[in-house]
């Protein structure tokens, strides 16, 4: 993975709900990571673990709804948690257990939802 190339200021949609544990920092991902095509079926299975907290009806109640966000936003957010650029212990742990393909799969799936 290469974080230094191609400085892109990403959009931090996950950070829009106020959470004292979350901060916004600069972080970049290499195009090769962003280009991974997510496996929708695998994403659907992996997403079931997320949907314990991120509600399937997309409502915000202490934890943000994440349906329908753009693939790139989700990929960024998860890599940022994984690399501890964003602070939230639960999300750092959950993202920490995902590899690049799994992150791509989840992003494709959540982006496909309403």
């Amino acid at each position, binding site marked *: 993975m290469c974080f230094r190339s191609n400085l892109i200021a990403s959009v931090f949609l996950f950070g829009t709900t106020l959470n004292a544990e979350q901060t916004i920092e600069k972080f970049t991902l290499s195009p090769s990571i962003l280009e991974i095509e997510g496996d929708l079926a695998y994403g659907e299975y992996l997403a*079931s673990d997320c949907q314990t907290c991120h509600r399937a009806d997309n409502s*915000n109640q*202490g*934890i943000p709804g994440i349906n329908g966000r753009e693939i790139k936003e989700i990929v960024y957010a998860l890599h940022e948690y994984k690399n501890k650029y964003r602070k939230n212990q*639960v999300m750092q*742990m959950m993202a*920490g*257990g995902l590899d690049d393909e799994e992150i791509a799969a989840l992003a494709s799936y959540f982006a496909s939802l309403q």
Partner: protein
Amino acid sequence: MSINRRSFIQTAAAVTASLATPMVMASGKPRVVVVGGGAGGATVARYIAKDSKGAIDVTLVEPSRTYYTCFFSNLYLGGFRDLGSIAHSYGNLASEYGVNVVHDWAVDIDGGGKTVSLAGGGTLNYDRLVLSPGIDFVDGAVDGWDLNAQNKMPHAYKAGSQTELLKAQLASMPEGGVFAMVAPPNPYRCPPGPYERISMIAHMLKKSNPTAKIIVADPKPKFSKMGLFQEGWANHYDGMIDWIGSDFGGGNVSVNPEAMTVSIDGEETKVDACNVIPAMKAGRICEMAGITDGNWAPVSAHDMSSKVDSNIHVLGDASAQGDMPKSGFSANSQAKVAAMAIRGALTGSKVFPAKFSNTCWSLVDTNNGVKVGATYKATDEKIAKVDGFISKTGETADVRKATYEESVGWYAGITADMFG
């Protein structure tokens, strides 16, 4: 136990043969019966029904029409929630997902004939059975206490009327009265549960009865999130809580529910309210199915199937699976793995490697939440921990408030994930 071993062995060969290919039932759709409509059972029923899109017939057997979550029942004791807010019905599972909800007790399982007998007299046939019956108490675990004493000294470890009773008894304690808890030995449902409960009771008494005392007799030398709870107790409820661990005789306990006394290491104390949380075991139906080893039902980590009978899956508190704590979050996570595996076996849908996660939030005082969590993977031996975290002592009020708010979001999320 009613499994006829001989017929079980006779049918085993046929069962194995039919499992080699995805099962297509000549007589109609494959059938899944789920016993227990709690964190594990409601989730697995919903996911199988939802994701099989009608290809699998799902029946959920649960005696209660209303499920009171144990999670957040301590917040009810603390005055942060009303009872109605932790009550859930099975209406959506039936109307939105087509789950056949049967309000009855499963009283027997015949693993050979693949049938479940109901207290009401009916029998259900299954291709796969899921048991998620939660816990029962080990007989004789606390000297002087049995289920007949549960109205005098409630356990409140199955939520609902027991929780209501404990709350009423706490509210009617005399000024400066004594509340005692007998804490359970490991392993038990919700490791931080008794200590969150102590925090919530202290919060409530501090307002209504500030000179009251709380005694905890504990058969363990240490407990989940101990540093965090002890920090909170010192900061918020100083001098109110006397925790007596096993190093100080906390495991040497007897109770007298008639006299309302508790004896800890030979010293008898008169109490005004008492919460006895005895040692636990898998819900009794697991014994009837003949799938327990000791107090719990061992399962394969890959699909939560019983190590005794691979057509029976066991979820949640009742299972012996390895490293996951017995929590609602764990049961819900295990349910999704089992749902995927069962759909795969019955309809040939794709099966991915099992992944699990858990986080347990606890409330220490108003806007003061703490959490512990971990991720897990399936190994051939057990569900094995991969990574984890725990809140730190000395965190800022903002962090603790955010943690509490997150727990409120989790509660709304998991109950929607269970009941639709």
